[in-house]
């Protein structure tokens, strides 16, 4: 329990340890701590910025998607309209073509009828001349009786 040189020895070693700690221990640790603090702050800021950018990108994607959908719907509607038009056109064309064909056929039939009637008339005329000749027993001169014959034919 005596006070002796140990006291001074302890004071000297204390001074040495404190100065060594001041020089070699404290500064590098504090520097590292401060650097890490800055780094973490920077990382957090970066992360926030990244999140913001992602949100912006998402919003952009959303608008682009909506635009595309609208465009697609428009295209579908146009196509449908065009299809309907084409169908209507075809119907009209078909109808008019059909009518034209029908009219042509009718005209041809009428023509045939007229021709047939004309033939018949002519044949009736010659048959009538031949019949009359036989009845009268003499030859009927076709040329001299042409007027009569024509009247007859005309009555048929």
């Amino acid at each position: 329990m005596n006070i002796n040189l140990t006291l001074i020895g302890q004071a000297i070693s204390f001074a040495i340890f404190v100065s060594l700690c001041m020089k070699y221990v404290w500064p590098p640790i504090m520097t590292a701590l401060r650097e890490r603090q800055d780094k973490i702050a920077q990382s957090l800021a970066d992360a926030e910025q990244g999140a913001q950018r992602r949100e912006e990108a998402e919003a952009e994607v959303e608008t682009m998607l909506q635009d595309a959908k609208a465009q697609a719907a428009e295209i579908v509607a146009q196509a449908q309209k065009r299809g309907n038009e084409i169908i209507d056109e075809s119907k009209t064309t078909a109808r008019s073509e059909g009518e034209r064909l029908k009219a042509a056929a009718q005209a041809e039939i009428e023509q045939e009828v007229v021709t047939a009637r004309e033939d018949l008339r002519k044949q009736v005329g010659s048959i009538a001349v031949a019949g009359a000749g036989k009845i009268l027993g003499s030859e009927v001169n076709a040329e001299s009786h042409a007027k009569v014959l024509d009247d007859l034919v005309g009555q048929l």
Partner: protein
Amino acid sequence: MASSEAGRTTGEYIQHHLQNLVLGVHPENGLSIAHGSEEAAAMGFWAIHLDSMFWSIGLGLFFLWLFKKGADKATAGVPGGLQNFVETIVEFVDENVRETFNGKSEVVAPLALTIFVWVFLMNLMDLIPVDWIPYAAESIGIPYWKIVPSTDVNVTLGMSFSVFALMIYYSIKIKGVSGFVKELIFQPFNSGNPIVQALFVPINLLLEGVALIAKPISLGLRLFGNMYAGELIFILIALLPFYAQWTLSVPWALFHILVITLQAFIFMMLTIVYMSMAHEHH
């Protein structure tokens, strides 16, 4: 009983465990190792406690080695285990310094760190069973070997007087000699009347002088008293039969973990407070 194994009475056992290994100049034997407390007392001031110096310097070197290792590895990246441990303690000390100490100083924070860890390590030696190392030392021919430096009043007072010297140094450096003297003679009693003030000066000087001197003494003796008492109780517990010792030594050791940490913390905090007072203008 533990004491009977070494062929000692209880009193001799306790005395043996409380005796430092003293190297000094004995009036009759010259430069020698003291055998017993009478010889140590006869050596007076010119003697040194080899065991206290060995352990305190050894533990101080261990502190520097450990923290230097941590400091070398310190990077801004992901910290490893040792770095984490070192940084936790450094941050704890730094926080306390910043909360208490308002001035700017490159010395106070490393000083506080050194005190905290070093005193803690010295106190921690108290938890090593009291017989192990003294008996191991005895078996290789060293008569006394105390392992807890902070139970040596020289060690604790050596540190507290160093802190006191820093206090005086910074007081004079910051406030000047006149500022420092003014603090001693114009406080706590103050008067506008020069005659009354002249009467107050000796009273103030006495009060402030006592308060100033009491700081390092209380700082050193507080740590010493706590650790010495703790050590003594461990020694007394060691006198019990070996099968019964754990019933007391385990609770006391658990409680002592709190004491050693707290005493290291108190020593550090008071140092910071004293440094702060030295840096403040009144």
